[in-house]
């Protein structure tokens, strides 16, 4: 076990080095949510949401942080790993005594660090330019932490599992980006979730992003804004339950679907 954690840590360091030194990639990984924040914040940011007095910028920040979970984990891995397969990274590791679990741990470590960086930049820009309020209570930050951790681990594992779907590194972003966009639109990142058609809400409730977004609203929105939710509550307990269920599903999917190689190469 200690050996596995040590290898996972070594992988994290190597993965991070390779990301940081790839300047374009490092820059856009950090800045992408900020760019969206600037666009949406400038257009709709100061609109007030009903009688609560909360700005759309505040609502959107919660949605962007939840999206950041999906970007840094699922999207980055489902697009990046097919490329790693093509470059021979995975085959080289497969030929070495590298356990899959340690490789997964390395990816989880990479995702955690990029998420923390991305979110810190996003919050800083939000506070500086769009009047975002950040929570102060320990309880709220604890909730932020466990929602993030559950989301990151399960979406990392889902990204690892999904990385076997695109047929090549070149087509990966074409396959993966629409999935992320559809989830964002249906999960209440860009629109008020309450205003979406019922069937769309039901669809989104099947996937983690809806619950991550709602969970982040429970962190970044004032408590009176619970009245803007479909049920009149942030449903923190149910969010925890759904995310835990997805954690289990993602573990099963990653361990059964992940392949070092493309299927056609065997």
């Amino acid at each position, binding site marked *: 076990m200690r050996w596995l954690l040590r290898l996972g840590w070594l992988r994290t360091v*190597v993965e991070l080095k390779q990301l940081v030194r790839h300047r374009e990639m490092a820059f856009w990984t950090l800045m992408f949510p900020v760019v969206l924040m600037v666009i949406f914040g400038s257009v709709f940011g100061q609109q007030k949401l009903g009688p609560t007095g909360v700005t759309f910028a505040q609502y959107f920040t919660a949605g962007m942080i939840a999206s950041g979970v999906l970007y840094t984990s699922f999207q980055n891995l489902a697009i990046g790993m097919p490329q790693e397969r093509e*470059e021979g*990274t995975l*085959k*080289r590791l497969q030929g*070495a005594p590298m*356990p899959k679990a340690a490789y997964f741990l390395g990816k989880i470590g990479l995702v955690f660090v990029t998420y923390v960086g991305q979110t810190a930049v996003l919050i800083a820009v939000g506070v500086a330019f769009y009047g975002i309020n950040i929570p102060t209570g320990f309880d709220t930050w604890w909730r932020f932490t466990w929602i993030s951790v559950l989301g990151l681990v399960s979406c990392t594992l889902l990204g690892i599992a999904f990385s076997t779907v695109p047929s090549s590194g070149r087509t990966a972003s074409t396959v993966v980006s629409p999935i992320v966009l559809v989830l964002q639109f249906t999960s209440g990142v860009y629109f008020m979730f309450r205003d979406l058609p019922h069937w769309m809400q039901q669809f989104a409730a099947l996937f983690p992003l809806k619950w991550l977004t709602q969970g982040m609203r429970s962190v970044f929105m004032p408590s009176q804004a619970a009245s803007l939710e479909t049920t009149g509550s942030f449903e923190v307990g149910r969010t925890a339950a759904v995310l835990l269920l997805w954690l289990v599903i993602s573990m099963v999917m990653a361990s059964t679907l992940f392949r070092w*190689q493309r299927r056609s*190469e065997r």
Partner: protein
Amino acid sequence: MIDELAVRARGVIKSYGAVHALRGVDLDIRRGECVALLGPNGAGKTTMTEILEGFRIRNQGEVTVLGVDPEHGNLQWKARLGMVLQSSADLKELSVAEAVRHFAQIYPHPANVDEVIEVVGLHEKRNTYVRKLSGGQRRRLDVALGIIGQPELLFLDEPTTGFDPEARRQFWTLIEGLKAKGVTILLTTHYLDEADRLADRVAIIAAGVVLADRTPSSLRADAMRTATVNWVEGGVARSEQTEHPTALMRELMARFEDEVPELSVVRPSLEDVYLHLTGEASERERDAAPADGAVTSAEVAS
């Protein structure tokens, strides 16, 4: 017997859809032996190597590598192997030393990182990012990563492709050093001189079949058995292949009073033997193609 043989393969068959990559390959490699798998492009060399490495799944046949079926090879088994795969473009953003150190940390009994970098001749590039290496330097890094785990059995899949002549000679010295340490080696190549220099045994493979599995010197002896005698007679170029060139020469000397015009006696090179063998194989494959097609569809259906 398990102890004596590092690799034992019997009747290995592998098809990709309608393409028969291997049609029943046998291969034994004793411990400490260096065997070259020699053949033209598409002969099945890489497929065979990757089946032994556990990357590919064979359709039929028996295989043990260090006493283990590669399809069930675990991490302990992999730790005893070294693999230099055909091509790669990974690790770009790491320095040479970082890449070698990282892999040293993965193996249970690694060699010394600095020594390995030195022995593959990348000492001056140890702090250079991998993306800035030339093709030949990249290949040396691949070799460094292949031997960093101190393998008992090393697979080298066309290791010197893209090397200049000097780099190849340095590489050969490196491999001879590993042989001296008792490392078993399976080398895939299409360079005859490389096989001749390094291998204890050469298995010539073409169209998925092993055509010859012998020592380089016995292949050469084969080549020396026949000779081609060329001369010009009555303004016409004549050529005759014979196992008795001396007898033919005597006859010619009797026929011509003076010098025999443009006389030469040519022994086939190792390369000629190789081309002859692999040429026959590809002709056979062409002739057999229609019949094969029928077999294939039946196999796919099952």
